[in-house]
Protein backbone atom coordinates (compact mmCIF):
# COMPACT_ATOMS: atom_id res chain seq x y z
CA UNK A 1 0.00 0.00 0.00
CA UNK A 2 1.24 3.47 -0.85
CA UNK A 3 0.68 6.32 1.52
CA UNK A 4 2.04 9.82 2.05
CA UNK A 5 1.88 12.72 4.44
CA UNK A 6 2.81 16.33 3.85
CA UNK A 7 3.66 19.00 6.37
CA UNK A 8 4.67 22.65 6.21
CA UNK A 9 3.11 26.06 5.86
CA UNK A 10 3.30 28.64 3.12
CA UNK A 11 5.56 31.08 5.01
CA UNK A 12 7.49 28.59 7.08
CA UNK A 13 10.95 27.21 6.30
CA UNK A 14 9.55 24.79 3.71
CA UNK A 15 7.35 21.82 2.83
CA UNK A 16 7.96 18.16 3.66
CA UNK A 17 6.53 14.93 2.26
CA UNK A 18 7.11 11.35 3.25
CA UNK A 19 6.00 8.56 0.92
CA UNK A 20 5.86 5.06 2.32
CA UNK A 21 5.37 1.82 0.42
CA UNK A 22 7.31 2.72 -2.69
CA UNK A 23 8.86 -0.46 -4.15
CA UNK A 24 12.62 -0.78 -4.31
CA UNK A 25 14.42 -0.59 -7.63
CA UNK A 26 12.69 2.47 -9.06
CA UNK A 27 15.09 4.92 -10.68
CA UNK A 28 14.32 8.32 -9.17
CA UNK A 29 16.15 11.65 -9.12
CA UNK A 30 15.22 15.29 -8.53
CA UNK A 31 15.14 15.70 -12.32
CA UNK A 32 12.00 13.56 -12.37
CA UNK A 33 10.30 15.98 -10.00
CA UNK A 34 11.56 19.54 -10.59
CA UNK A 35 10.16 20.05 -14.13
CA UNK A 36 6.65 19.37 -12.87
CA UNK A 37 7.12 21.86 -10.03
CA UNK A 38 8.23 24.46 -12.53
CA UNK A 39 5.26 23.80 -14.80
CA UNK A 40 3.03 24.42 -11.79
CA UNK A 41 4.72 27.75 -11.07
CA UNK A 42 5.01 29.36 -14.45
CA UNK A 43 1.96 29.58 -16.63
CA UNK A 44 0.40 32.60 -18.30
CA UNK A 45 -1.97 34.24 -15.87
CA UNK A 46 0.16 33.70 -12.81
CA UNK A 47 1.53 36.87 -11.27
CA UNK A 48 4.91 36.31 -12.84
CA UNK A 49 5.09 39.20 -15.25
CA UNK A 50 7.79 40.89 -13.28
CA UNK A 51 9.06 37.88 -11.42
CA UNK A 52 12.61 36.85 -11.38
CA UNK A 53 11.50 33.26 -11.39
CA UNK A 54 12.47 31.65 -8.11
CA UNK A 55 12.29 28.04 -9.15
CA UNK A 56 11.04 25.46 -6.71
CA UNK A 57 13.77 22.83 -6.23
CA UNK A 58 13.03 19.56 -4.48
CA UNK A 59 15.58 17.73 -2.31
CA UNK A 60 15.37 13.99 -1.73
CA UNK A 61 16.48 13.37 1.83
CA UNK A 62 15.65 9.70 2.25
CA UNK A 63 14.63 6.54 0.41
CA UNK A 64 16.94 6.79 -2.58
CA UNK A 65 20.49 5.53 -2.94
CA UNK A 66 22.59 5.95 -6.08
CA UNK A 67 19.53 7.15 -7.95
CA UNK A 68 17.36 4.12 -7.12
CA UNK A 69 14.70 3.64 -4.43
CA UNK A 70 15.63 1.20 -1.68
CA UNK A 71 12.18 0.49 -0.27
CA UNK A 72 12.52 2.74 2.76
CA UNK A 73 10.30 5.82 3.19
CA UNK A 74 10.98 8.47 0.54
CA UNK A 75 11.48 11.90 2.09
CA UNK A 76 11.09 15.08 0.05
CA UNK A 77 11.97 18.61 1.16
CA UNK A 78 10.92 21.76 -0.67
CA UNK A 79 12.64 24.79 0.79
CA UNK A 80 10.86 28.11 0.97
CA UNK A 81 13.57 30.47 -0.28
CA UNK A 82 11.74 33.49 0.96
CA UNK A 83 11.83 32.34 4.57
CA UNK A 84 15.19 33.83 5.52
CA UNK A 85 13.90 37.29 4.55
CA UNK A 86 10.60 36.96 6.30
CA UNK A 87 11.24 34.94 9.42
CA UNK A 88 12.03 37.85 11.72
CA UNK A 89 9.13 39.97 10.57
CA UNK A 90 6.44 40.16 13.17
CA UNK A 91 3.15 40.90 11.48
CA UNK A 92 0.14 41.78 13.63
CA UNK A 93 -2.64 39.15 13.80
CA UNK A 94 -5.01 39.08 10.84
CA UNK A 95 -8.59 39.71 11.84
CA UNK A 96 -10.67 39.97 8.66
CA UNK A 97 -11.66 36.62 7.10
CA UNK A 98 -11.70 36.46 3.30
CA UNK A 99 -14.92 35.18 1.76
CA UNK A 100 -14.56 31.94 -0.18
CA UNK A 101 -11.65 30.71 1.90
CA UNK A 102 -11.06 28.54 4.95
CA UNK A 103 -10.46 31.68 7.05
CA UNK A 104 -13.73 31.98 8.97
CA UNK A 105 -14.52 28.31 9.47
CA UNK A 106 -10.89 27.49 10.26
CA UNK A 107 -10.57 30.15 12.93
CA UNK A 108 -13.79 29.09 14.65
CA UNK A 109 -12.90 25.40 14.39
CA UNK A 110 -9.44 25.71 15.93
CA UNK A 111 -10.11 28.61 18.29
CA UNK A 112 -7.57 31.05 16.83
CA UNK A 113 -7.30 34.81 17.26
CA UNK A 114 -5.03 35.18 14.25
CA UNK A 115 -6.51 34.12 10.91
CA UNK A 116 -2.97 33.73 9.57
CA UNK A 117 -2.78 30.40 11.47
CA UNK A 118 -5.40 29.04 9.06
CA UNK A 119 -4.15 30.83 5.95
CA UNK A 120 -0.67 29.38 6.38
CA UNK A 121 -1.77 25.79 5.90
CA UNK A 122 -4.88 26.35 3.77
CA UNK A 123 -2.85 28.24 1.21
CA UNK A 124 -2.43 26.61 -2.18
CA UNK A 125 1.31 26.54 -1.50
CA UNK A 126 0.80 23.03 -0.11
CA UNK A 127 -0.07 21.85 -3.62
CA UNK A 128 3.61 22.27 -4.50
CA UNK A 129 4.64 19.34 -2.33
CA UNK A 130 1.63 17.30 -3.41
CA UNK A 131 2.74 17.91 -6.99
CA UNK A 132 6.16 16.53 -6.06
CA UNK A 133 4.51 13.43 -4.59
CA UNK A 134 2.50 13.05 -7.81
CA UNK A 135 5.69 13.36 -9.88
CA UNK A 136 7.05 10.33 -8.02
CA UNK A 137 3.84 8.44 -8.82
CA UNK A 138 4.18 9.41 -12.50
CA UNK A 139 7.73 7.99 -12.48
CA UNK A 140 6.42 4.75 -10.98
CA UNK A 141 3.57 4.41 -13.49
CA UNK A 142 5.98 5.02 -16.37
CA UNK A 143 7.75 1.78 -15.43
CA UNK A 144 4.54 0.00 -16.47
CA UNK A 145 3.90 2.17 -19.51
CA UNK A 146 1.00 4.00 -17.89
CA UNK A 147 0.91 7.73 -18.64
CA UNK A 148 -0.99 10.61 -17.11
CA UNK A 149 -1.48 14.04 -18.66
CA UNK A 150 -3.32 17.06 -17.34
CA UNK A 151 -4.24 19.97 -19.58
CA UNK A 152 -6.53 22.96 -19.86
CA UNK A 153 -9.84 22.82 -21.70
CA UNK A 154 -11.29 26.17 -20.78
CA UNK A 155 -10.39 29.56 -19.34
CA UNK A 156 -13.13 32.11 -18.70
CA UNK A 157 -15.43 31.93 -21.71
CA UNK A 158 -12.95 30.18 -23.97
CA UNK A 159 -13.51 26.42 -24.10
CA UNK A 160 -12.11 23.60 -26.18
CA UNK A 161 -15.15 21.77 -27.48
CA UNK A 162 -13.54 18.58 -28.65
CA UNK A 163 -10.20 17.05 -28.09
CA UNK A 164 -9.15 14.68 -30.82
CA UNK A 165 -5.53 14.34 -29.79
CA UNK A 166 -3.97 11.32 -28.12
CA UNK A 167 -2.58 11.81 -24.61
CA UNK A 168 0.93 11.60 -26.06
CA UNK A 169 0.12 14.27 -28.63
CA UNK A 170 -1.44 16.48 -25.95
CA UNK A 171 1.67 16.18 -23.80
CA UNK A 172 3.74 17.48 -26.72
CA UNK A 173 1.38 20.29 -27.68
CA UNK A 174 0.91 21.78 -24.24
CA UNK A 175 4.66 22.28 -24.00
CA UNK A 176 4.35 25.12 -26.47
CA UNK A 177 1.22 26.61 -24.91
CA UNK A 178 1.65 29.13 -22.08
CA UNK A 179 -1.76 28.05 -20.78
CA UNK A 180 -1.23 24.30 -21.32
CA UNK A 181 -3.99 23.98 -23.93
CA UNK A 182 -3.28 21.68 -26.88
CA UNK A 183 -4.99 23.94 -29.44
CA UNK A 184 -2.86 26.93 -30.57
CA UNK A 185 -5.86 29.04 -31.64
CA UNK A 186 -7.67 28.49 -28.34
CA UNK A 187 -4.41 29.20 -26.53
CA UNK A 188 -4.28 32.63 -28.15
CA UNK A 189 -7.88 33.38 -27.25
CA UNK A 190 -7.31 32.24 -23.68
CA UNK A 191 -4.26 34.47 -23.30
CA UNK A 192 -6.31 37.42 -24.57
CA UNK A 193 -9.03 36.62 -22.00
CA UNK A 194 -6.38 36.67 -19.31
CA UNK A 195 -5.06 40.02 -20.55
CA UNK A 196 -8.58 41.45 -20.54
CA UNK A 197 -9.15 40.23 -17.00
CA UNK A 198 -5.84 41.70 -15.89
CA UNK A 199 -6.81 45.12 -17.28
CA UNK A 200 -10.18 44.92 -15.57
CA UNK A 201 -8.61 43.87 -12.27
CA UNK A 202 -10.54 40.61 -12.37
CA UNK A 203 -9.75 36.89 -12.23
CA UNK A 204 -10.74 33.82 -14.25
CA UNK A 205 -11.65 30.23 -13.50
CA UNK A 206 -11.85 27.39 -15.97
CA UNK A 207 -11.91 23.73 -16.88
CA UNK A 208 -9.08 21.20 -16.85
CA UNK A 209 -8.92 17.56 -17.82
CA UNK A 210 -6.73 14.63 -16.84
CA UNK A 211 -6.26 11.58 -19.04
CA UNK A 212 -4.75 8.29 -17.95
CA UNK A 213 -3.48 6.24 -20.86
CA UNK A 214 -2.90 2.50 -20.85
CA UNK A 215 -4.11 1.75 -17.33
CA UNK A 216 -4.98 -1.96 -17.18
CA UNK A 217 -8.55 -3.14 -16.62
CA UNK A 218 -9.21 -4.03 -13.01
CA UNK A 219 -7.95 -1.13 -10.88
CA UNK A 220 -10.31 -0.06 -8.11
CA UNK A 221 -13.24 -2.30 -7.17
CA UNK A 222 -17.03 -2.54 -7.21
CA UNK A 223 -17.21 -4.42 -3.89
CA UNK A 224 -17.36 -1.50 -1.48
CA UNK A 225 -18.18 2.16 -1.89
CA UNK A 226 -14.80 3.37 -0.67
CA UNK A 227 -12.91 1.14 -3.06
CA UNK A 228 -14.63 2.50 -6.12
CA UNK A 229 -12.07 4.38 -8.16
CA UNK A 230 -14.52 7.14 -9.16
CA UNK A 231 -14.84 8.25 -5.55
CA UNK A 232 -11.12 8.07 -4.85
CA UNK A 233 -10.30 10.12 -7.92
CA UNK A 234 -13.03 12.62 -7.07
CA UNK A 235 -11.65 13.09 -3.58
CA UNK A 236 -8.20 13.79 -4.97
CA UNK A 237 -9.43 16.31 -7.56
CA UNK A 238 -11.88 18.11 -5.29
CA UNK A 239 -9.19 18.50 -2.64
CA UNK A 240 -7.33 20.91 -4.90
CA UNK A 241 -7.97 24.53 -3.81
CA UNK A 242 -10.43 26.34 -6.12
CA UNK A 243 -11.79 23.13 -7.64
CA UNK A 244 -15.51 22.96 -7.02
CA UNK A 245 -16.79 20.50 -9.59
CA UNK A 246 -15.81 17.36 -11.46
CA UNK A 247 -17.10 14.95 -14.07
CA UNK A 248 -15.94 11.54 -15.20
CA UNK A 249 -16.12 11.03 -18.95
CA UNK A 250 -18.88 13.11 -20.50
CA UNK A 251 -21.11 12.86 -17.43
CA UNK A 252 -22.70 16.29 -17.72
CA UNK A 253 -23.54 15.90 -21.40
CA UNK A 254 -24.75 12.33 -20.81
CA UNK A 255 -27.16 13.44 -18.14
CA UNK A 256 -29.07 15.43 -20.77
CA UNK A 257 -29.51 12.57 -23.20
CA UNK A 258 -31.57 9.38 -23.29
CA UNK A 259 -29.84 6.12 -22.35
CA UNK A 260 -29.89 4.78 -25.90
CA UNK A 261 -27.50 7.57 -26.91
CA UNK A 262 -25.21 7.48 -23.99
CA UNK A 263 -23.83 4.05 -23.22
CA UNK A 264 -20.63 2.62 -24.68
CA UNK A 265 -21.22 -0.66 -26.53
CA UNK A 266 -19.07 -3.71 -25.89
CA UNK A 267 -17.66 -4.98 -29.17
CA UNK A 268 -15.21 -7.48 -30.56
CA UNK A 269 -12.33 -5.85 -32.38
CA UNK A 270 -9.36 -7.77 -33.77
CA UNK A 271 -10.24 -10.68 -31.54
CA UNK A 272 -10.27 -8.46 -28.46
CA UNK A 273 -13.28 -7.51 -26.37
CA UNK A 274 -13.38 -3.73 -26.14
CA UNK A 275 -15.71 -0.68 -26.21
CA UNK A 276 -17.10 1.22 -29.19
CA UNK A 277 -16.85 4.56 -27.43
CA UNK A 278 -15.71 5.97 -24.11
CA UNK A 279 -18.41 8.20 -22.69
CA UNK A 280 -17.91 6.42 -19.40
CA UNK A 281 -14.40 7.88 -19.14
CA UNK A 282 -12.67 4.57 -18.56
CA UNK A 283 -14.55 3.60 -15.39
CA UNK A 284 -17.49 1.26 -14.99
CA UNK A 285 -18.82 0.13 -11.64
CA UNK A 286 -15.88 1.71 -9.92
CA UNK A 287 -13.30 -0.32 -11.85
CA UNK A 288 -11.07 0.68 -14.75
CA UNK A 289 -12.43 -0.98 -17.90
CA UNK A 290 -9.32 -0.77 -20.07
CA UNK A 291 -10.28 2.44 -21.86
CA UNK A 292 -8.61 5.80 -21.41
CA UNK A 293 -9.57 7.35 -18.06
CA UNK A 294 -11.05 10.84 -18.50
CA UNK A 295 -11.68 13.20 -15.59
CA UNK A 296 -12.68 16.80 -15.97
CA UNK A 297 -12.55 19.41 -13.20
CA UNK A 298 -14.00 22.89 -12.80
CA UNK A 299 -12.10 25.63 -10.98
CA UNK A 300 -13.62 28.81 -9.61
CA UNK A 301 -11.91 32.16 -10.19
CA UNK A 302 -9.76 33.26 -7.25
CA UNK A 303 -10.68 36.32 -5.17
CA UNK A 304 -9.19 39.56 -6.40
CA UNK A 305 -7.77 42.57 -4.57
CA UNK A 306 -9.28 45.16 -6.83
CA UNK A 307 -12.81 44.35 -5.83
CA UNK A 308 -12.51 43.59 -2.11
CA UNK A 309 -15.42 41.59 -0.78
CA UNK A 310 -17.52 42.50 2.24
CA UNK A 311 -16.45 40.93 5.50
CA UNK A 312 -16.29 41.60 9.23
CA UNK A 313 -13.31 42.27 11.52
CA UNK A 314 -13.57 39.44 14.06
CA UNK A 315 -11.89 41.43 16.85
CA UNK A 316 -13.70 44.76 16.57
CA UNK A 317 -16.87 43.58 14.79
CA UNK A 318 -16.44 46.42 12.32
CA UNK A 319 -18.17 45.76 9.00
CA UNK A 320 -15.40 46.16 6.47
CA UNK A 321 -13.93 44.66 3.32
CA UNK A 322 -11.36 41.96 2.89
CA UNK A 323 -8.69 43.10 0.46
CA UNK A 324 -6.60 40.22 -0.69
CA UNK A 325 -3.03 40.41 -1.80
CA UNK A 326 -2.80 38.28 -4.93
CA UNK A 327 -1.42 38.94 -8.34
CA UNK A 328 -2.53 35.74 -10.08
CA UNK A 329 -5.22 36.29 -12.70
CA UNK A 330 -5.82 32.66 -13.57
CA UNK A 331 -4.39 29.53 -12.02
CA UNK A 332 -6.25 26.93 -14.10
CA UNK A 333 -3.08 25.83 -15.96
CA UNK A 334 -1.32 25.35 -12.62
CA UNK A 335 -4.33 23.38 -11.39
CA UNK A 336 -4.11 21.10 -14.44
CA UNK A 337 -0.56 20.22 -13.35
CA UNK A 338 -1.62 19.56 -9.76
CA UNK A 339 -4.57 17.49 -11.01
CA UNK A 340 -2.20 15.39 -13.12
CA UNK A 341 -0.15 14.79 -9.98
CA UNK A 342 -3.02 13.81 -7.69
CA UNK A 343 -4.61 11.50 -10.28
CA UNK A 344 -1.25 9.81 -10.86
CA UNK A 345 -1.00 9.18 -7.13
CA UNK A 346 -4.40 7.50 -6.92
CA UNK A 347 -3.73 5.33 -9.99
CA UNK A 348 -0.28 4.38 -8.69
CA UNK A 349 -1.80 3.48 -5.33
CA UNK A 350 -4.46 1.27 -6.94
CA UNK A 351 -1.83 -0.29 -9.20
CA UNK A 352 0.47 -1.22 -6.34
CA UNK A 353 -2.58 -2.45 -4.39
CA UNK A 354 -3.35 -4.95 -7.16
CA UNK A 355 0.13 -5.91 -8.36
CA UNK A 356 2.00 -5.28 -5.10
CA UNK A 357 5.49 -6.39 -4.38
CA UNK A 358 8.57 -5.12 -2.70
CA UNK A 359 10.46 -4.38 -5.90
CA UNK A 360 9.75 -3.19 -9.42
CA UNK A 361 10.84 -6.61 -10.68
CA UNK A 362 8.36 -8.36 -8.41
CA UNK A 363 5.52 -6.04 -9.42
CA UNK A 364 6.37 -6.55 -13.08
CA UNK A 365 6.15 -10.32 -12.67
CA UNK A 366 2.71 -10.00 -11.07
CA UNK A 367 1.56 -7.56 -13.73
CA UNK A 368 2.81 -9.83 -16.56
CA UNK A 369 1.00 -12.83 -15.16
CA UNK A 370 -2.21 -10.83 -14.91
CA UNK A 371 -1.96 -9.58 -18.47
CA UNK A 372 -1.40 -13.08 -19.78
CA UNK A 373 -4.52 -14.13 -17.92
CA UNK A 374 -6.51 -11.36 -19.65
CA UNK A 375 -5.77 -12.51 -23.16
CA UNK A 376 -6.09 -16.23 -22.37
Amino acid sequence: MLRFLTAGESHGPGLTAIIEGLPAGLPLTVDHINPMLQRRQRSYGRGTRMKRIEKDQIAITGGVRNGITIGSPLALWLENRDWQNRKDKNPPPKRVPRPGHADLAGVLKYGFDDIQNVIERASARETAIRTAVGAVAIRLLAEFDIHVVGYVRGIGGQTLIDNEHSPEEIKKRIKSSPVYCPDPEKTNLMCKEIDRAREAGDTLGGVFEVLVDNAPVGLGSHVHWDRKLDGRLAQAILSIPSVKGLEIGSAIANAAHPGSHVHDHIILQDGRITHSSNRAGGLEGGITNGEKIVIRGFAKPISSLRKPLPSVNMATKAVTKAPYVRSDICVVPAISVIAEAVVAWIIADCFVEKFGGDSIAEINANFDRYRQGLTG
Partner: protein
Amino acid sequence: MEQTKNIIITGFMGTGKTTVGREVARILAREFYDTDEIIEARAGMCITDVFNLHGEPSFRQMESAVMAELVRSDHTVIATGGGTLLNDGIADLALKTGIIFCLNADLPSLAARLRLSINRPLLRGRDTFQSLLQQREKSYRQLPNQIDTTHLSPHEVASAIIDEYRQLTGDVASRA
Protein backbone atom coordinates in the same frame (compact mmCIF):
# COMPACT_ATOMS: atom_id res chain seq x y z
CA MET B 1 -23.18 52.14 8.76
CA GLU B 2 -20.42 54.73 8.66
CA GLN B 3 -17.08 53.63 7.35
CA THR B 4 -14.15 53.72 9.77
CA LYS B 5 -11.30 55.69 8.27
CA ASN B 6 -8.00 54.09 7.39
CA ILE B 7 -4.95 55.17 9.35
CA ILE B 8 -2.26 55.95 6.78
CA ILE B 9 1.30 56.32 8.01
CA THR B 10 3.91 57.97 5.84
CA GLY B 11 7.25 59.75 6.13
CA PHE B 12 10.88 59.51 5.06
CA MET B 13 12.67 56.17 5.24
CA GLY B 14 13.79 55.22 8.70
CA THR B 15 11.07 57.18 10.48
CA GLY B 16 9.38 53.93 11.50
CA LYS B 17 6.33 53.66 9.25
CA THR B 18 6.23 49.86 9.08
CA THR B 19 7.21 49.22 12.69
CA VAL B 20 4.79 51.79 14.04
CA GLY B 21 2.08 50.72 11.62
CA ARG B 22 2.29 47.14 12.87
CA GLU B 23 2.04 48.33 16.43
CA VAL B 24 -1.00 50.50 15.75
CA ALA B 25 -2.69 47.60 13.95
CA ARG B 26 -1.92 45.27 16.83
CA ILE B 27 -3.39 47.64 19.43
CA LEU B 28 -6.51 48.45 17.41
CA ALA B 29 -6.93 44.87 16.08
CA ARG B 30 -7.03 46.19 12.52
CA GLU B 31 -5.61 44.67 9.35
CA PHE B 32 -2.16 46.03 8.49
CA TYR B 33 -0.89 46.65 4.95
CA ASP B 34 2.59 47.77 3.97
CA THR B 35 2.69 48.97 0.36
CA ASP B 36 6.36 48.00 -0.12
CA GLU B 37 5.64 44.49 1.13
CA ILE B 38 2.69 44.11 -1.23
CA ILE B 39 4.76 45.33 -4.18
CA GLU B 40 7.53 42.87 -3.31
CA ALA B 41 5.03 40.01 -3.07
CA ARG B 42 3.52 40.89 -6.44
CA ALA B 43 6.76 41.54 -8.25
CA GLY B 44 8.39 38.45 -6.78
CA MET B 45 11.51 40.45 -5.93
CA CYS B 46 12.70 43.04 -3.43
CA ILE B 47 12.21 46.78 -4.02
CA THR B 48 15.90 47.24 -4.88
CA ASP B 49 15.54 44.78 -7.74
CA VAL B 50 12.31 46.38 -8.92
CA PHE B 51 14.22 49.68 -9.18
CA ASN B 52 17.20 48.07 -10.88
CA LEU B 53 15.22 45.94 -13.31
CA HIS B 54 12.26 48.18 -14.07
CA GLY B 55 13.18 51.68 -12.99
CA GLU B 56 11.59 54.15 -10.61
CA PRO B 57 8.67 55.21 -12.86
CA SER B 58 7.52 51.57 -13.06
CA PHE B 59 7.81 51.26 -9.32
CA ARG B 60 5.73 54.42 -8.80
CA GLN B 61 3.06 52.99 -11.11
CA MET B 62 2.85 49.82 -9.07
CA GLU B 63 2.71 51.92 -5.93
CA SER B 64 -0.23 53.95 -7.28
CA ALA B 65 -2.09 50.79 -8.21
CA VAL B 66 -1.58 49.25 -4.78
CA MET B 67 -2.69 52.41 -2.94
CA ALA B 68 -5.76 52.72 -5.18
CA GLU B 69 -6.73 49.18 -4.23
CA LEU B 70 -6.00 49.49 -0.53
CA VAL B 71 -8.03 52.67 -0.02
CA ARG B 72 -11.13 50.83 -1.21
CA SER B 73 -11.08 49.13 2.17
CA ASP B 74 -11.70 50.80 5.48
CA HIS B 75 -10.80 50.07 9.09
CA THR B 76 -7.18 49.32 8.17
CA VAL B 77 -3.70 50.60 8.94
CA ILE B 78 -1.56 51.32 5.89
CA ALA B 79 2.19 52.01 5.94
CA THR B 80 3.25 53.63 2.69
CA GLY B 81 6.64 53.75 1.03
CA GLY B 82 8.77 56.85 1.53
CA GLY B 83 7.80 58.57 -1.73
CA THR B 84 4.23 57.31 -2.07
CA LEU B 85 2.27 60.36 -0.93
CA LEU B 86 4.53 62.88 -2.62
CA ASN B 87 2.39 62.42 -5.72
CA ASP B 88 -0.68 64.70 -5.55
CA GLY B 89 -3.06 62.18 -7.07
CA ILE B 90 -2.27 59.52 -4.51
CA ALA B 91 -2.17 61.99 -1.64
CA ASP B 92 -5.72 63.14 -2.54
CA LEU B 93 -6.93 59.56 -2.66
CA ALA B 94 -5.39 58.86 0.73
CA LEU B 95 -6.87 62.02 2.26
CA LYS B 96 -10.37 61.09 1.11
CA THR B 97 -10.41 57.68 2.73
CA GLY B 98 -8.04 57.97 5.67
CA ILE B 99 -6.28 60.03 8.25
CA ILE B 100 -2.66 60.61 7.29
CA PHE B 101 0.11 60.68 9.87
CA CYS B 102 3.52 61.84 8.75
CA LEU B 103 6.44 60.62 10.81
CA ASN B 104 9.76 62.44 10.94
CA ALA B 105 13.01 62.28 12.93
CA ASP B 106 16.27 64.18 13.00
CA LEU B 107 19.04 63.29 10.56
CA PRO B 108 21.40 61.53 13.02
CA SER B 109 18.57 59.26 14.23
CA LEU B 110 17.57 58.33 10.70
CA ALA B 111 21.16 57.58 9.72
CA ALA B 112 21.60 55.41 12.79
CA ARG B 113 18.37 53.48 12.23
CA LEU B 114 19.08 52.95 8.52
CA ARG B 115 22.59 51.70 9.05
CA LEU B 116 20.93 48.49 10.13
CA SER B 117 19.26 48.00 6.74
CA ILE B 118 21.09 48.02 3.43
CA ASN B 119 18.23 47.39 1.00
CA ARG B 120 17.44 50.98 0.10
CA PRO B 121 17.69 51.70 -3.62
CA LEU B 122 17.63 55.49 -3.28
CA LEU B 123 20.52 55.58 -0.84
CA ARG B 124 23.96 55.47 -2.31
CA GLY B 125 25.79 57.28 0.46
CA ARG B 126 25.30 59.80 3.21
CA ASP B 127 25.29 62.75 0.82
CA THR B 128 22.53 61.27 -1.31
CA PHE B 129 20.62 60.50 1.84
CA GLN B 130 20.88 64.04 3.11
CA SER B 131 19.99 65.61 -0.21
CA LEU B 132 17.02 63.28 -0.74
CA LEU B 133 15.73 64.24 2.68
CA GLN B 134 16.15 67.93 1.92
CA GLN B 135 14.41 67.48 -1.43
CA ARG B 136 11.42 65.85 0.16
CA GLU B 137 11.29 67.74 3.45
CA LYS B 138 9.07 70.52 2.13
CA SER B 139 6.52 68.10 0.65
CA TYR B 140 6.41 66.03 3.83
CA ARG B 141 5.84 69.13 5.96
CA GLN B 142 2.67 69.83 3.99
CA LEU B 143 1.08 66.58 5.10
CA PRO B 144 -1.17 66.56 8.15
CA ASN B 145 -0.45 65.22 11.63
CA GLN B 146 3.33 65.44 11.89
CA ILE B 147 4.95 63.31 14.60
CA ASP B 148 8.59 63.61 15.62
CA THR B 149 9.81 60.10 16.37
CA THR B 150 13.40 61.03 17.24
CA HIS B 151 13.16 60.22 20.95
CA LEU B 152 10.11 57.97 20.96
CA SER B 153 9.80 54.19 20.94
CA PRO B 154 7.53 52.58 18.33
CA HIS B 155 4.92 51.92 21.01
CA GLU B 156 4.97 55.55 22.10
CA VAL B 157 4.56 56.73 18.52
CA ALA B 158 1.72 54.26 18.01
CA SER B 159 -0.04 55.53 21.14
CA ALA B 160 0.38 59.11 19.96
CA ILE B 161 -1.19 58.23 16.61
CA ILE B 162 -4.10 56.44 18.24
CA ASP B 163 -4.78 59.30 20.64
CA GLU B 164 -4.71 61.83 17.82
CA TYR B 165 -6.92 59.58 15.67
CA ARG B 166 -9.52 59.30 18.42
CA GLN B 167 -9.55 63.04 18.91
CA LEU B 168 -9.93 63.71 15.20
CA THR B 169 -12.66 61.19 14.55
CA GLY B 170 -14.38 60.84 17.91
CA ASP B 171 -14.14 57.11 17.16
CA VAL B 172 -14.69 55.51 20.55
CA ALA B 173 -14.67 52.04 19.00
CA SER B 174 -10.92 52.46 18.55
CA ARG B 175 -10.33 52.56 22.25
CA ALA B 176 -7.30 50.37 22.97
